[in-house]
């Protein structure tokens, strides 16, 4: 404790001196670390050579930020001798959770149902609400994907890093079928001129699900004997293979250029157009392109609910319980006479089917598909939603999807950081959203290591249903 940095406090080691010393040391380390990373910057001036600019001020800002933060932490949370809250008592977070949880489900569904209305009222009109309803659709897609992957990862315990492959299969299946000229001609000949353009989504939706499920089985077969890390690698490769095939099989998929002019969604055969037989005219409304967007929102809510309800039903059926048992112990499953091969394949197929539905929805929403949309980062995002939400928990996954996708989107809007007294007008907050997002994930994993919703309801029960706590079970096992 004889550091010159700590000044007077050095002779008699006080908590403040120690904290100050630590703060200064961390500040210096931060500065040195940031010096090469942030301090030097090569900028392109016009078409000329790169010029080196220095940003020592910014480095110093970061260093001071870290130093002050550590000082504050040392004097408060990390203070030596601070009484730690007794382990036995539930955390305030848990108490809040216990208070909210009975209301959470109805509140969530009510919010999901009335969200477009709220958006329209708050923003003051159909057109200005477009951004928010689009965001709702975007989040809804991820809720659905999360719930779909939850079957494979959360229930059956099969770590699937290539889930986006099934999403891609669904999207491309719909894109190819709905833009296919022979099918269109055949349908026009038999069922009316515009039949295929109007009904293609509703006809193709189950087809896409079935196709994706088939691909789920195709992936499932070779990986039946793999678990954990090995399974993750193979599924990761599978996801990439699908994407590369989509890029390179130009004759069939139009390669990297993608497939455009996919017919838009119809209200069960009634198009969302300004024409006399359009949706607005039929229902006596004035035409607004937002009608289609709001309808899309309700379609994704319905599809998500379908996923959730199907999962709930399946969990109570023998196959669903076999999935959960499989996640716990494969050998024990076999010793009880459960066919683990069939169980794994049904898990893959069911999860893939919902991925396929979501893919078809993606294609009809964006009306353009290209391999760009189905990269590994999508799989990683969906998996992160499932893990953050608490594996196997439906509400947790939904909450995580809202938090992650909505939060990422909100981080685009950090333009206040651009003000002069903060980071300057050159600062681009969208570039930092992944960083902030990463911090948020680390924070959740530190404080809620088993995900946002870690308990699970017993799927079968005697007399009364009891919540099974996640406490007292090892991390990653509860």
């Amino acid at each position, binding site marked *: 404790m004889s550091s010159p940095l700590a000044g007077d406090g050095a002779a008699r080691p006080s908590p403040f001196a120690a904290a100050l010393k630590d703060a200064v040391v961390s500040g210096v380390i931060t500065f040195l670390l940031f010096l090469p990373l942030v301090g030097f910057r090569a900028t392109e001036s016009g078409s000329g050579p790169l010029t080196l600019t220095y940003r020592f001020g910014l480095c110093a800002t970061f260093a001071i930020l870290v130093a002050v933060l550590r000082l504050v932490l040392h004097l408060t949370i990390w203070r030596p001798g601070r009484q730690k809250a007794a382990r036995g008592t539930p955390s305030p977070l848990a108490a809040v959770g216990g208070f909210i949880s009975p209301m959470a489900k109805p509140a969530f569904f009510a919010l999901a149902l009335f969200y477009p209305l709220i958006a329209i009222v708050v923003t003051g009109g159909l057109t200005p609400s477009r951004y928010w309803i689009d965001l709702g659709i975007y989040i809804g897609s991820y809720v659905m994907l999360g719930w779909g992957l939850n079957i494979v990862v959360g229930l059956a315990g099969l770590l699937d890093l290539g889930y986006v492959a099934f999403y891609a299969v669904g999207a491309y299946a719909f894109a190819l079928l709905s833009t296919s000229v022979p099918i269109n001609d055949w349908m026009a000949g038999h069922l009316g001129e515009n039949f295929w353009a109007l009904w293609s989504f509703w006809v193709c939706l189950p087809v896409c699900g079935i196709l994706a499920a088939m691909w789920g089985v195709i992936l499932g077969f070779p990986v039946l004997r793999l678990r954990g890390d090995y399974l993750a690698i193979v599924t990761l490769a599978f996801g990439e293979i699908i994407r590369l095939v989509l890029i390179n099989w130009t004759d069939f998929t139009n390669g990297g250029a993608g497939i455009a002019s996919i017919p838009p969604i119809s209200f069960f055969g009634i198009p969302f157009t300004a024409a006399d037989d359009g949706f607005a005219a039929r229902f006596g409304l004035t035409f607004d392109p937002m009608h289609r967007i709001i309808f899309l929102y309700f379609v994704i809510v319905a599809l998500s609910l379908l996923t959730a309800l199907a999962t709930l039903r399946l969990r109570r059926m023998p196959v669903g319980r076999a999935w959960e048992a499989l996640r716990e112990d494969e050998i024990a499953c076999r*010793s009880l006479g459960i066919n683990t091969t069939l169980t794994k394949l049904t898990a893959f197929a069911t999860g893939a089917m919902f991925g396929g539905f979501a893919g078809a929805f993606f294609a009809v929403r964006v009306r353009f598909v290209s391999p760009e949309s189905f990269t590994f980062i999508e799989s990683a995002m969906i998996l992160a939603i499932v893990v953050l939400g608490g594996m196997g928990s439906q509400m947790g996954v939904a909450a995580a999807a809202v938090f992650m996708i909505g939060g990422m989107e909100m981080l685009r809007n950090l333009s206040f950081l651009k003000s002069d007294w903060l980071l300057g007008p050159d600062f681009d907050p969208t570039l930092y959203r992944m960083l902030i997002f990463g911090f948020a994930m680390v924070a959740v994993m530190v404080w809620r290591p088993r995900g946002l919703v870690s308990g699970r309801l017993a799927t079968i029960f005697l007399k009364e249903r009891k919540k099974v706590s996640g406490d007292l079970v090892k991390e990653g096992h509860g």
Partner: protein
Amino acid sequence: MTAMLSVTGVKTYYGNIVALKGVDVEVNEGEIVTLIGANGAGKSTLMMTICGSPRAREGSVVFNGRDITNLPTHEIMRLKIAQSPEGRRIFGRMTVYENLQMGAAVDGNTHFQDDLERMFTLFPRLKERLHQRGGTLSGGEQQMLAIARALMTRPRLLLLDEPSLGLAPLVVKQIFDAIRDLNRTEGLTVFLVEQNAYHALKLAHRGYVMVNGVVTMSGTGKELLERPEVKAAYLEGGH
């Protein structure tokens, strides 16, 4: 009388390494038969070979007159054979109730309630713990759960792999008493693999001693307990 389970000349390999070098074991209906031996003798391998994973490369396993040597594991386990695997392998995140229910899942839960009551009389502790996660039980309770879960399949032959592993002597006694009860009252046939030779041989009608993948001795439990070789190899050190 033909045996309920007969293992004849079974050779099992892990890759190229031979684990069982031609084993013959018979279990008759209504018997408790134990297989004792040191670590790595191949006891558990024999147990798993009966269940079809790994498979016997030579020899045959016949249950109730049916050759089950090459059946898939899950089909073997549907033939009224139940196994409480080594290391218990209960479903840690599922409740005790769900664990028991998984045992009854294959035959469609038709006797579930009756069987549940039977398990509660056999292991009253399970009733107290019914809604707890399997992973939160003590070792002894987990073992009881593993046995109860196996019994929920209504087996005629129960295969037990080291039920005394890592348990306190008092708990071992409870579990062995329960096995004896089941055998006496319900005529359940039990094939028990154990390291705890003294208790196992006292419980069993007959026993086999396995050394390095070969059965070296067999006889009634009492006979084996008195054999000097058995005493020297497995019973020294007091109980």
